[in-house]
């Protein structure tokens, strides 16, 4: 029993790291523009399908799809940004509806091109199981976990140390003041969206290597990313990481101890609990409230 729980926690942590990547992409875009990109999950999904194409058509390791995924997803991210930028009235709500629409278009486009079959990596190396003590993991999961950690570290460093990164933080906390200091909010917003796209690309490929994907799942990714940002509270990368781990572990435990059908439910309930009882998230500074 205990081993089962421990295994679930372990697997949950591995999956959670990728959730963190997805959530960070959403959070970076939100931080710069104050809008939530409801199509973010679909961007992640698209990257996953790019990995499928690279593996299926060219017989390469899915991770080789990163360049392709980056190109496709980042350009799409740019297109979405341009579209949202064109909204004049009621930015917050209209952008929700617009990105919602884009999400529908992307999900159905994927459905049309790739059909509704469930896809997953067939690479033997990645599916190979390795054991760490009593715990098991697929090689793919470990690789994904490492990649996520590296990217998160890089993002954290970039936001803290680089000029561009600090500009992003400045714009997200006070747009006008940042503008007065010579920072061009428009360029910063573009950068933020592109970064979000890049993170989505990596997350998508990672998810393909460790889990299964199908067209309907894009929507689920967006919701999970949102749940993680609520768990984490806004403004804290370590918070997002921990929140994502919490979600991953909760899901894994639910599957192990209850049933897999309740997996999604667990995340939702966790989300609502935190939303109502811990308005600042578990770790966050200040959450966006009404």
């Amino acid at each position, binding site marked *: 029993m205990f081993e089962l729980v421990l295994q679930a926690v372990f697997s949950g942590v591995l999956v959670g790291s990728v959730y963190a990547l997805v959530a960070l992409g959403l959070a970076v875009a939100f931080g710069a523009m104050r809008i939530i990109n409801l199509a973010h999950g679909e961007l992640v999904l698209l990257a996953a399908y790019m990995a499928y194409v690279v593996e299926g058509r060219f017989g390469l390791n899915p991770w080789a799809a990163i360049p392709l995924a980056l190109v496709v997803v980042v350009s799409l991210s740019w297109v979405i940004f341009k579209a949202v930028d064109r*909204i004049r009235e009621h930015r*917050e709500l209209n952008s929700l509806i617009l990105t*919602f*629409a884009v999400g529908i278009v992307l999900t*159905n486009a994927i*459905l049309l091109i790739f059909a509704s079959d469930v896809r997953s990596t067939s690479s033997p190396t990645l599916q190979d199981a390795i054991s760490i003590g009593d715990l098991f993991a697929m090689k793919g999961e470990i690789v994904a976990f490492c990649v996520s950690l590296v990217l998160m570290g890089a993002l954290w460093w970039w936001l803290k140390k680089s000029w561009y990164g600090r500009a992003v933080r400045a714009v997200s906390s006070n747009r006008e003041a940042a503008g007065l200091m010579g920072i061009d909010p428009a360029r910063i917003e573009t950068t933020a969206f592109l970064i979000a796209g890049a993170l989505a690309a990596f997350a998508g490929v990672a998810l393909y290597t460790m889990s299964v994907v199908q067209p309907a799942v894009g929507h689920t990714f967006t919701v999970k990313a949102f749940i993680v940002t609520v768990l984490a509270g806004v403004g804290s990368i370590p918070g997002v990481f921990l929140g994502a781990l919490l979600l991953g572990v909760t899901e894994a435990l639910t599957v192990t101890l209850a049933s897999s059908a*309740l997996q999604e439910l667990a995340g*939702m309930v966790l*989300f609502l609990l935190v939303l109502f009882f811990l308005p600042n998230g578990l770790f966050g500074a200040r959450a966006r409230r009404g």
Partner: protein
Amino acid sequence: MSAKPASFRPTMPETIAGVALLLVAVAPIVFDVGNYALGLLVSSLVLAGLGLSWALLGNLGGMVSFGHAAFFGVGAYASALVSARLGLPVVVAVPLGGLVASLSAITMLPTLRLSGPYFALAILAYAQIFRILATEAASITGGAGGLQRYPSLPTILGLDLSSRTGSYLLVLSVVAVFAGVYVAIRRSHVGIALRAIAESEVATRVVGVDSLRLKAWMLLLSAFMAGVFGALNAHVIGFLEPDYAFGGSWSMMPIIAAVFGGYRTVLGPICGAVAIYLFDQLVAKSLIPVGHEILLGVVLAVMVLIAPNGIAGFVGGLLDRPKGGRPHVAT
């Protein structure tokens, strides 16, 4: 606090429009368009009602919901179960379904304190939860296999409401009644305050408006309406399963319908729903059988970008220009 409606005498243009609408509404019956077409219209009117409930919440209260399927599904299951297991007549079960949907909305009241995106997605979470609960509580709801042994619409005063004609007239009447309620609220003092709450809630609170309570009432009303249409739809279709009743389409379609038609007006969501539904069933599905919703997504995206107030807003803007000056602050 009085909620007296303002003067209710219709103006001449309104009367003409009303009569024209009436004629359009009964035309399908008069010209006997056939059962298939009537069936399509019934479904589009169900969507119209759902779109109306969504627009009510968005327009009078400023709450955009991405999870109206929650109320729709709850209403559907409540009505079906109550009429099947407790033997209540369908005429009672349908409003009861709406009531249960309202009650389920009470659990959502804490979300009213949240800002736009958080509210929208919190409601989405509820919709997912209800769907999963409905699937898991198989002993009550028939689970994933579906529920189908429940009564269909009865015969009243000689009119068989389960026939295509009957159900068409029934759903049409309910839409009309709810539209009337919407208009009445919108014209009342409460409606005026609600209009302002969407973008300037603090300004209204400072002058004494209990905005949270008003928003709560709108949420409960919107849930009731959505639940009633969910119930009606259940009895018309005759079969329920969780993925259908709580399906994402019921959250997505009213948004597209209302935004397309113009969610700030009453007729906008109704006409938009009919237009979008018919477009989807007749055009989109034949062009792209699997994944036809992609066209709807495109329509929605285009509308938000070039005509965020929908067709109604677009036309209204054109009509107002010759008069000169600013368009009157309407709706």
